């Protein structure tokens, strides 16, 4: 037992260890609780409430300065559960126009931490969102009776005209993906979901500000910190001036009623889009405010797909409107001269291939072929071009052809300032090699020369073709926003893009298009006192033909280019020409004559029945 005392001093090591541990802990705690700024900052985030102050979103005007989209106050009803006392539920429900069941359901939803992860009985929770001023008036009068409930102001979009829903787009709550992409957003923020609201989100949204408030241990706000010296004022969003003429847009949408189709009008000189209508359309107000979710569901379930902006998302065979581009290509490539004549015996007949045409004189020269929309002429042209020895092979010839098409704005997105634009389709040599196994020639692919077959364009691209012809050889990328407050427009929308065709050839085609109006397929578009140029299109497809029109006016100093595309509208002259003519008249004269107004009403009421298939 002598051993026992040998190690007695080791008790000091034990005591030392205990004291060392406690000392280290106390030093660490001193550091954490008293010295460290890092954790103090986090601690401050408890004591100080950084309240976000939302900027007002930029508004939109049309090209004539008319207010189109603005902000309207809306109100969220907030509830702080801990302060709800002796609530007269009946009176509460009555003042908000809700049922007792709905009240109970909402209250349990708010308290459910699974549905509402940020729930705390000490802080305000959203009970009802986006009440309009009318809904809210009665509630506000009685608010003093309902302790624990309060109001938070926010804004919703207000639309002056019930048109152009596709263009404006809408606002919706940010998704997790949006937050991941841009840390500007937090849960519950709103973001542009479609159209201009989405494309110009950065300009429209402005910059959030913040208000620093003092908060006690219970999360109750105790007032402003340092008299607001730490506050940051929000920067309001930038206003946009659209290139749109809202009257023209309204007329276009009116004319397209009861039909599926699009009308696109562009100012050729600037590439500014004057109207961009897609039918069926919807009232943009439907997608603002409390009922957005429900309305969005109804619209997206509609078989005619009203949410689809067909003017930029729909791809169609361009039909005969495409012939203008072909004439230009053949002229530039030296395949034809303006005087070249091709035979047409009720169509193109060569080596067993027959593509039908209608009755007109034969052989026919270029200008009359545009006026009468002769199919045979363009089949011959393409056949000649593909077979021309100077290219070396069909493939090389088609590649040259494709380059012309791409230079005219086909086959790729034009780059309009709207999301979701489609690119259409222009076949290339590789495509046909794969399809026909290299054994193809000008005859095999003849139908693309008349805008059929594999070729598809968006109505916007058709309108842009019109603008190129009106400009005699160039276009400026179409755009719907003309001016951003305090910011220059993207150079994409100011720099002209030239095609590969010389100006003189354009003059020839313009003559042909003028001919078509004077004594051809577009005679209905001959407006008094205005030199209109035009080209009809009748695109074959599985159902009834699509009715199309492309034109511009006046001939020498073009102010407007129009493309009309009505699905299953039949011959181009049935819907395309009259709608196009009315749009030009409205824009160029500022109004419709009495007679034209009558016509407009008549067209508006004409209905095309599409059955109930998905479209």
């Amino acid at each position, binding site marked *: 037992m002598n051993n026992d005392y040998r190690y007695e001093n080791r*008790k000091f090591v034990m005591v030392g260890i*205990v004291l060392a541990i406690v000392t280290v802990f106390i030093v660490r705690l001193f550091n954490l609780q008293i010295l460290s700024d890092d954790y103090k900052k*986090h*601690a401050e985030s408890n004591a100080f409430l950084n309240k976000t102050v939302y900027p007002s979103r930029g508004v939109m005007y049309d090209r004539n300065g008319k207010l189109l989209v603005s902000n309207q106050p809306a109100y969220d009803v907030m509830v702080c559960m801990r302060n709800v006392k002796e609530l007269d539920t009946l009176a509460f429900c009555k003042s908000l126009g809700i049922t007792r069941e709905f009240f109970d359901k909402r209250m349990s939803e708010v308290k459910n931490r699974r549905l509402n992860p940020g729930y*705390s009985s000490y802080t305000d929770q959203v009970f009802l969102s986006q009440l309009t001023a009318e809904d809210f008036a009665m509630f506000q009068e009685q608010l003093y009776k309902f302790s624990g409930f309060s109001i938070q102001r926010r804004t919703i979009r207000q639309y002056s005209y019930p048109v152009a829903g596709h263009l404006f787009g809408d606002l919706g709550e940010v998704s997790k993906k949006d937050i991941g992409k841009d840390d500007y957003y937090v849960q519950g923020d709103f973001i542009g979901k479609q159209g201009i609201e989405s494309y110009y989100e950065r300009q429209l949204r402005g910059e959030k500000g913040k208000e620093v408030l003092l908060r006690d241990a*219970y999360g109750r706000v105790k007032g402003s910190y340092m008299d607001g010296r730490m506050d940051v004022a929000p920067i309001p969003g930038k206003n946009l001036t659209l290139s749109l003429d809202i009257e023209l847009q309204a007329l276009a949408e009116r004319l397209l009623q009861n039909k599926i189709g699009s009308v696109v009008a562009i100012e050729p000189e600037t590439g500014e889009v004057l109207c961009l209508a897609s039918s069926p359309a919807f009232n943009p107000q439907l997608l603002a405010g409390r009922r957005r979710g429900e309305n969005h569901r109804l619209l997206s379930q509609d078989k005619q797909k009203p949410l689809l902006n067909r003017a930029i998302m729909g791809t169609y065979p361009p039909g005969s409107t495409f012939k203008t581009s072909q004439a230009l290509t053949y002229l530039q490539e030296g395949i034809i001269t303006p005087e070249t004549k091709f035979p047409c015996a009720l169509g193109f007949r060569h080596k067993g291939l027959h593509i039908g045409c209608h009755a007109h004189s034969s052989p026919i020269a270029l200008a009359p072929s545009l006026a009468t929309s002769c199919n045979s002429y363009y089949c011959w042209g393409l056949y000649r071009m593909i077979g021309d020895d100077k290219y070396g092979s069909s493939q090389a010839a088609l590649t040259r052809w494709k380059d012309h098409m791409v230079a005219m704005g086909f086959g790729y997105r034009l780059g309009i300032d709207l999301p979701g634009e489609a690119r259409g389709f222009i076949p290339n040599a590789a495509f046909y090699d794969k399809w026909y196994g290299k054994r193809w020639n000008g005859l095999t692919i003849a139908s693309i020369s008349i805008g059929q077959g594999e070729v598809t364009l968006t109505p916007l691209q058709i309108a842009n073709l019109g603008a190129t012809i009106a400009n005699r050889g160039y276009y400026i990328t179409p755009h719907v926003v003309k001016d951003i407050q305090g910011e220059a427009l993207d150079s994409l929308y100011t720099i002209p893009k030239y095609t590969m065709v010389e100006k003189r050839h354009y003059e020839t085609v313009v003559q042909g298009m003028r001919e078509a109006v004077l004594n051809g397929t577009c005679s209905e578009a001959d407006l008094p006192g205005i030199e209109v140029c035009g080209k009809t299109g009748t695109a074959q497809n599985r159902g009834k033909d699509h009715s199309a029109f492309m034109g511009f006016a006046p001939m020498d100093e073009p102010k407007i280019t129009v493309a009309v595309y009505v699905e299953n509208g039949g011959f181009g002259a049935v819907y395309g020409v009259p709608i196009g003519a009315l749009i030009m008249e409205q824009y160029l004269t500022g109004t419709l004559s009495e007679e034209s107004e009558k016509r407009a009403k008549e067209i508006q009421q004409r209905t095309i029945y599409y059955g109930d298939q998905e479209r």
Partner: protein
Amino acid sequence: MAIKNVNLWRSIDWITIILYFVLVTFGWLSICSATYDFGELAELDLLSFDTNTGKQLVWIGCAMIIALILLNVEKKYYEMLAYPVYFGFVLLLAATIFVAPDIKGSHSWLVLGPIRIQPAEFSKFATSFALARLLSTYGFSMEKRADIAKMIAIVIVPMLLIVLQNETGSALVYLSFFLVLYREGMTGSLLAVGVCAVLYFVIGVGQSGNYLESMPMVCVGEFIVFLLIPLITALMVGIYGKRLSHALWIAGGNLIGTFIAWLFSRYVVPFDICIIQLILCACTALYLLYIYILERYASYLLIALFALGSVGFYYSCNMIIDKLQPHQQMRILVLLGIKDDPSGVGYNINQSKIAIGSGGLWGKGFLNGTQTKLNYVPEQHTDFIFCTIGEEQGFIGCTFILLLYAFFIIRIIMLAERQGSNKFTRVYGYCLASILTFHLFVNVGMVIGLAPVIGIPLPFFSYGGSSLWGFTILLSILLRLDAERESRFR
């Protein structure tokens, strides 16, 4: 019997009892505060048995009853029952592995109707018993191999069983028994080896992802560890060896060798200089072996083995890290700063540091903590209970509680030391002091971000019956043993 009962009242250590009651009371108040959700629950509910607070009150009541019973059992019965109780608990721990249901991956809870008991919390006192019994056996000696083997087996067996229950945290507590063994004469070099192991682990694994800026091939952790090994070896040679010149040779040779390698790598051909360091370590070991053969002095051989073992330890660390369960692996990595992921595993530590940091000097006041109330801090009434104190009582409150603990543990050491020749009570007392120290170190260390996140409770504070009962039993038996000390002297 009658005499001893009278003695109990007079000879029991009232200071310890008062400290115990103060700790338990503060513990209960902390649980009140952590459980109190300023909101739907009215203040009166604090005493309802449906809440944790109410339940804890029941556990405290039961603990008192258990303590009263144990205080009335004579010491001779404890000495007699030490081994049977120990073996009983070993069997219970083994059975628990198979019987216990899977609760969050651990098989440590025995479910008896509405009551859940964690045998691992109670086996600590059984192990303390067995250890005290063994060390107080007549003729026991730290020099005897058989005795050392028995001693280590008593500690290791329950530890391994608890590891098998997937309760690594509770198993680690058994490491604290080595402090007891140290007090009883175990060689201090073993503790030194332990410290080195921790050092190598923390540096080696903690810096394994970083590379020297000037030499991207060289891993910082590896470099420092391989520099430390020969230096510590040299230090040991200096302390335990016969001649200081050997130590200087080793230190100098390694430093110069490394420096030359560094120059070569920097200016001639870049290569991983850790290879040279490794060769230098091997040379050091060979050199020690050489002087061992020359001088026939066993310490050199042991130091050579230590050097080789250190290298082996470093390499196995990375492998061990891979072997650990993912959450433990992550916890260690987070502590070492490798994965600082606020929403991942680091979240717990981060939130608890914020809660404590927000307490400031005086704290926010009882029941006024927001961080611990609004569910920011996880496990706020069990493992992270110290956060509540930190936030609501501030630096002053924390310091007070820590000093209270220090005083409590030192008081227990004093009780252990005043036993004279009564080794059973002394060893037992040291066991309790060591266990408390370990719990305090790991739990509070974890909450303030100094120790790894290992889920062990803070004695008398964390919510739960098993933990409270376990410590009450440990303490009340010590009080009884201590109360009998005078009977021997009288």
